[in-house]
Structures are given as C-alpha cells and as structure tokens.
C-alpha cells in the first residue's frame, strides 16, 4: 500500500510542478542587473527600440523554437534586434546574469539596459507584450 501512496504523491507533485513550469515558461518579468556585463557582447548590435538577448545551449529544442519566434518578431516590430549567446561558451556571462536554464531571453530597452527576463520557450504574444513594456519608455511605437 505504501507503494500506491508513493505513486500518488509523485504524480500529484509532478502535475503541480509541470503546471507551474508551463505557466511560467516564456513569461517575462522585471529584473535588475548590477553593472553591464553584456555591454561588450552587444556592441553595435543593439536595437534602436529594444534588444532581445537569447541564451541558448546545444541539444535544446526549445532554444531553436525560441530563436524562430524571436526572429519572426524582429521582422514584425521595427527597431528590435535579436542577439543569441551560447550559454556553455559564456559561463562567466551566465553567472553574472544568473542564467539558470535555456532558453533565457533578456529584454533590453532603447538604452541597452536589461529590464526584463523570461526563461523557457515563449509564445509570440509573450514576446510582444514584453517588448511593449520595454519600448514604452521611448514614446509612441506602432506595431
């Protein structure tokens, strides 16, 4: 009977974890970064309205899907650039920015400041919502 109890607890806990992770995936939330550790990497690649910095790793299918989604958004929204960084080859950056999983997308404002972050594969609407908040400070933007 203990076995049945263990199974029920494990499945119930997994369902909760799964639902929470699915809900949180891709949703951007405000974040503060001390200093500007990625300034070097972004020289010349900042978007005039916003920049999306994506951390990816090998064998990460959600990273590939995220790349496709972000690329599509850069076509839709003017002045937004997409920069992709290999997490495994930039572990110092990963630590400085406290990246815990891939994909992680940082949303930078027009001044190149990190304002929001999202981990996990986003939906296109999540990306556009985050961009709307990040670009809001620069005045009127029509999508």
């Amino acid at each position: 009977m203990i076995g049945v109890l263990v199974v029920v607890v494990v499945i119930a806990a997994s369902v909760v974890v799964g639902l929470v992770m699915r809900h949180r995936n891709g949703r951007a939330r405000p974040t503060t970064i001390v200093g500007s550790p990625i300034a070097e990497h972004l020289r010349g690649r900042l978007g005039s309205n916003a920049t999306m910095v994506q951390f990816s790793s090998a064998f990460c299918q959600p990273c590939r899907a995220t790349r496709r989604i972000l690329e599509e958004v850069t076509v839709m929204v003017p002045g937004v650039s997409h920069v992709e960084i290999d997490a495994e080859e930039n572990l110092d950056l990963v630590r400085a920015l406290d990246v815990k999983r891939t994909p992680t997308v940082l949303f930078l404002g027009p001044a190149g400041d990190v304002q929001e972050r999202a981990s996990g594969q986003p939906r296109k609407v999540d990306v556009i919502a985050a961009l709307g908040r990040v670009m809001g400070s620069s005045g009127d933007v029509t999508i």
Partner: protein
Amino acid sequence: MTTPVCTRNQIDPRGPRFGATITSLVLIAAIVVISTPVGVVLVAWQTVVFGLGAFVGLHAQPYGALYRALVQPRLPRPTHLEDAAGPRFAQGVGFLMLALALVSVLIGLTVVATVLLAFALAAAFLNAAFGFCLGCEMRIIGLRVLSR
C-alpha cells in the same frame, strides 16, 4: 515544406515522449509491487531498456522500436525533428538510477529503491505529460557548478 527524414541523429520528438509514457507505467507498477519478485523483474527490465538506449543507441531502445512499429505509421509525418543527443543522455541518467534501484532492491534496501524509482518516475512523467526534459533543465546549473 519538405517533410524531414528521421536519421540516427535526428529523431521524431514524439518517440521519446511515447517511451516516457511506457516508462512511467512500468515504474508505477514497479513501485507498487517493489517488495515482490515481479517488482524486481520490472526494475531489471527497465534497467535493460535504459541501458540499450544509452549504450547502443536510441534505435535499439525497445519502446522506441515499439513506437516506430505501431504508433508512428498512424501519425502524420513530424513537422520538425530533434537532436537525438538529449534523449540519449536522458536514457543514461535513467540507466544510472534504475541500476542503483536494482542493486538496492536485490540487497534488501527497498526504501532506497523506492526513492530512486520515485525520482525516475517524476522525470519520466514530466516528460510524458508536459514534454519537459529534466536533464536539460539541470544542464546549465550543472555546468555552472562543475566549472567553478
């Protein structure tokens, strides 16, 4: 859009999820009857399954073979393929956990075996039900810690 062709290195992503579903069922049964000979057989079986997938390759994994024979022909061609390396690594982790569980149950440490099987079940279930790859989630944290 051309339909992708499954190769040794690029696989239909639905295959591993099917495998994770079978694995979950096997592990549920194993946990429930762990104190019986059937439980030991189930653990031994799942250890072999993971071992084949990890050391021989995903094509040798019995659940994958079942998927290709029975399920895949009934589904539309996959819209995209995924790299085989991720699922193969997961098989290796699964093998480690199941092998330890097998040793534990054979020397009478049923509680240890149950705990190991419970973690394996959580990982398999999360993959089957939500498509989450727990090993992938731990990869970056693991690299951060190991390369300190």
